[in-house]
């Protein structure tokens, strides 16, 4: 055991000395590698943080949401629909939800206007008529504080002049940044909604184990409605930044390709000097195993350093600096973007995948070309 350890130690020593001879090239390789890891890890960490946020916070969402449909598009629900569901067994409570979008021409931002439910829990969030509570993003965009006035204009020409009662807490920004909470009377007048119209319905089930059953019954009771359970909502967010989709897939593909190119360039161009050196080492008593181990150490050291450095920088980038480099992509065309802290959350599986991606192609591409040289008679290699 000691022998094997000493042997590896000497191989590492030799590898480091050999790499130091081409310091600039190896440093360049390390930097590119680390950069790739940084890019991938940043996206993965960001996704992981947001996913965990969603998973934990949306546990508070309604058990079932029932949405009207007409000609494939979302349609309003009626009080009659609400009554139909009232009679279903297992239903603890039904609420008609009132919420809608408003495109604010003055700032090009999209707001979500909403009426807080009539429950005791929402009492502190229910404004009086003429008052409004706004999310921190709206406050930032319109440069408003509590006590100031918010002017809203609907496409129909309806006009609202509301006093800001409060700005919703910063800590909830990720879920409330674009909210504008109004009294029901103000909301209905603004959007010209009839008294028996609702955006959709929220259903609460007495026994959590019966949610699927109740959802099914609701679907049968209201044939022209769409049923979305909380489990469905959570699943949507599980797929956030999924490997299979869009940007991350493109990034991943590019990264794997880049890793592969780097590795092949490094390994296939075995210079005359390198070949000669291998020949000399074999002639003085190294065997094929030693040569290959040495090359593996070389690849492993570069890849591992790149992985550690890239990962470390990615963590700092995302969790200490709020991912400024990814922000333009995340924000897209949104004018309104939450100012929120990202909570560190590490998905072990994803990091293991990243480690594998960073190490494996490099190792394989280094070892395969070297095999023939390492196994040849030293005399043949030295000529």
């Amino acid at each position: 055991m000691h022998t094997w350890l000493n042997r590896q130690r000497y191989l590492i020593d030799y590898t480091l000395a050999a790499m130091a001879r081409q310091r600039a090239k190896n440093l360049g390789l390390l930097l590119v590698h680390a950069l790739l890891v940084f890019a991938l890890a940043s996206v993965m960490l960001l996704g992981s943080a947001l996913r965990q946020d969603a998973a934990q916070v949306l546990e508070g969402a309604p058990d079932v949401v029932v949405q009207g449909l007409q000609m494939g598009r979302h349609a309003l629900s009626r009080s009659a629909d609400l009554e139909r569901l009232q009679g279903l067994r297992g239903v603890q409570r039904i609420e008609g939800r009132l919420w809608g979008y408003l495109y604010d021409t003055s700032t090009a931002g999209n707001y979500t206007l909403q009426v807080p439910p009539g429950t005791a829990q929402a009492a502190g969030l229910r404004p009086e008529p003429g008052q409004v509570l706004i999310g921190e993003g709206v406050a930032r965009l319109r440069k408003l504080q509590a006590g100031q006035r918010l002017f809203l204009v609907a496409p129909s020409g309806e006009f609202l002049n509301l006093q800001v009662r409060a700005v919703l807490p910063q800590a909830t920004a990720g879920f409330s940044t674009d909210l504008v909470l109004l009294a029901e009377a103000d909301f209905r007048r603004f959007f010209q909604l009839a008294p028996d119209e609702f955006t959709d319905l929220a259903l609460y089930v007495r026994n959590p184990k019966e949610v699927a059953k109740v959802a099914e019954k609701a679907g049968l009771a209201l044939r022209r409605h769409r049923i979305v359970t909380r489990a469905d909502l959570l699943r949507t967010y599980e797929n956030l930044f999924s490997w299979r989709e869009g940007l991350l897939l493109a990034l991943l593909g590019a990264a794997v390709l880049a890793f592969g190119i780097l590795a092949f360039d490094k390994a296939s161009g075995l210079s005359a000097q390198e070949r000669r050196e291998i020949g000399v080492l074999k002639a003085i008593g190294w065997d094929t195993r030693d040569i290959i181990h040495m090359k593996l150490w070389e690849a492993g050291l570069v890849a591992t350093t790149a992985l550690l450095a890239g990962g470390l920088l990615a963590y700092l980038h995302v969790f200490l600096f709020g991912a400024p480099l990814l922000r333009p992509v995340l924000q897209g065309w949104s004018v309104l973007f939450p100012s929120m802290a990202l909570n560190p959350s590490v998905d072990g599986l994803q990091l293991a995948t990243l480690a594998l991606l960073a190490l494996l192609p490099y190792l394989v591409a280094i070892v395969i070309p070297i095999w023939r040289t390492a196994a040849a008679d030293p005399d043949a290699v030295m000529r």
Partner: protein
Amino acid sequence: MIGALLLGWLALALHAAWAQGAAHEARAQSRALVQALALTDAAWFTEARYTRHPGLADLHSAFQDAPGGAEHFPSGAWVAPPRHFPAAGLQLMPPEPVATPRTDE
């Protein structure tokens, strides 16, 4: 260098552990808000309906691209179609009988 990096990672692990505690508080506040207001989605991407409320996004209406397509709104590329889309292979509603006249209000 690897030693220094490993030390860095140790510091990270400690930071993450500490930050989780702080995160817990923030998440609890958000969860309470979500529960009080009966919210269904995060407010991360406010560009379009299906990015603001990916959980409730419309089915394939005209002039609306599905989430997951990298097109008009960059953030559409980040969000996969919800699992309960029929395109994802799951039945959304019980099948409708073809010739029955509608009796819904």
